[in-house]
């Protein structure tokens, strides 16, 4: 942060949070007990649907090693599409295919960047970066765009009015808008015209105690292993261990959003 006046006033946020905390303790001591009880087991056990509220004992994130990301490979993108029913979208009749190509909802995009000076080419998957300070949440007029306690930034589509401010605010172009009626959908991925959506770190897998995301699994299965998913707050997690060893960066780190998705080799 070069310009101190632009820094986020963490002290004020902290104050608000602790003030809220005090209120919680005095109004409902049960809540505090609840949190303590969760501390022992922050996540659901494998294969068991989650029965207790998510807590901030964990913060989910990813490390993407771009040196392992292969040019032309789209395994992560198609795995994400299949997992989240994005492959069930159909082009509306009579639509312009070029327009549809840009409008079709997509949670991961493969991006190729070239350093013009050195000619070095980098491939990387780009998805919601799950910021600690998400601009999409700041601008949302209805509270639909929110950050779950475990750090997952997502859209409550029951509250979303489709204004698309969040899409404009996102520095990563990570969000999509559903432009047309969706005929076929998966039970786990409801989807309909008029709402914004983006990567939710396979939230259904999180709530069922599974280890990884569809994209990370697919990348490993394709033999690249460029995507590592895990808990940023657990120092023993493979993710934290890798982050401690590999030099990594946040994309657009100048925005000080403290992203949950980090990139190595960029």
């Amino acid at each position, binding site marked *: 942060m070069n310009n101190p006046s632009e820094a986020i006033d963490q002290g004020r946020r902290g104050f608000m949070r602790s003030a809220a905390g005090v209120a919680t303790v005095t109004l409902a001591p049960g809540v505090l007990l609840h949190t303590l009880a969760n501390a022992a087991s922050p996540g659901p056990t494998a294969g068991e649907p*989650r029965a*207790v509220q998510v807590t901030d004992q964990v913060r989910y994130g990813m490390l993407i090693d771009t040196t392992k990301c292969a040019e032309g490979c789209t395994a992560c993108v198609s795995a994400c599409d299949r997992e989240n*029913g994005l*492959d069930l979208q159909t082009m509306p009749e009579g639509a312009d295919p070029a327009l549809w190509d840009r409008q079709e909802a997509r949670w991961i995009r493969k991006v190729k960047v070239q350093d013009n000076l050195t000619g070095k080419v980098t491939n990387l998957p780009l998805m919601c970066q799950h910021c600690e300070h998400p601009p999409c949440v700041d601008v949302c007029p209805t509270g639909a765009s*929110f950050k779950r306690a475990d750090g997952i930034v997502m859209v409550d589509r029951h509250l979303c009015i489709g204004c698309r401010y969040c899409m404009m605010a996102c520095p990563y172009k990570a969000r999509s808008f559903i432009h047309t009626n969706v005929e*076929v959908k998966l039970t*786990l991925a409801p989807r309909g015209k008029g709402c914004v959506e983006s990567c939710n770190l396979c939230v259904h*897998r999180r*709530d069922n105690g599974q280890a990884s995301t569809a994209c990370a699994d697919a990348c490993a299965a394709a033999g690249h292993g460029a995507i590592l998913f895990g808990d940023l707050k657990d120092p023993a997690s493979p993710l934290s261990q890798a982050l401690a060893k590999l030099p990594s960066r946040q994309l657009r780190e100048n925005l000080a959003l403290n992203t949950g998705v980090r990139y190595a080799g960029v």
Partner: protein
Amino acid sequence: MATALVTGGRVILGLAGALLALAVQAGGSNFVIPGSQAAKEQRCVEPTDFMRRNHMEVIKHQRDATVHDGIRSTKHSLAGCIACHVAQGPSGHPVPVNDDRQFCGACHEFAAVRLNCFDCHATVPAGGPLGPGGGAAPAPGVAPGTPLPPGHPQTTVR
């Protein structure tokens, strides 16, 4: 004034409820579709009377619990309602629950209620509660390996 309005609303709602209850009793049968899982079960997730009047509150509560707090273990999930109440058509394929002769659809048609939930939510169990890649234990009332919707790449490719 506000109280008067609210009370007025209650009376109308109460009337609608009473009429509905009467209609159900007069019919001698209920809205449960023969051939659905529910037709084989003894009871709903809550007492039937309570469900008739309050199912919307139950689902909406579950909605916030799931989306914001990640709670997916409870029996009140919308996916669960659909899995248990969906009927099989002659071809063995599940019939959308919101069709106007099916469970949710028939009663809402009768009561002149219109929902937008099914603009987004699947009307038949599709892909299982954990989806294509998931494959862990299914939620209560959801048959393991529920078929994917027709046209889903996994149904055709594999």
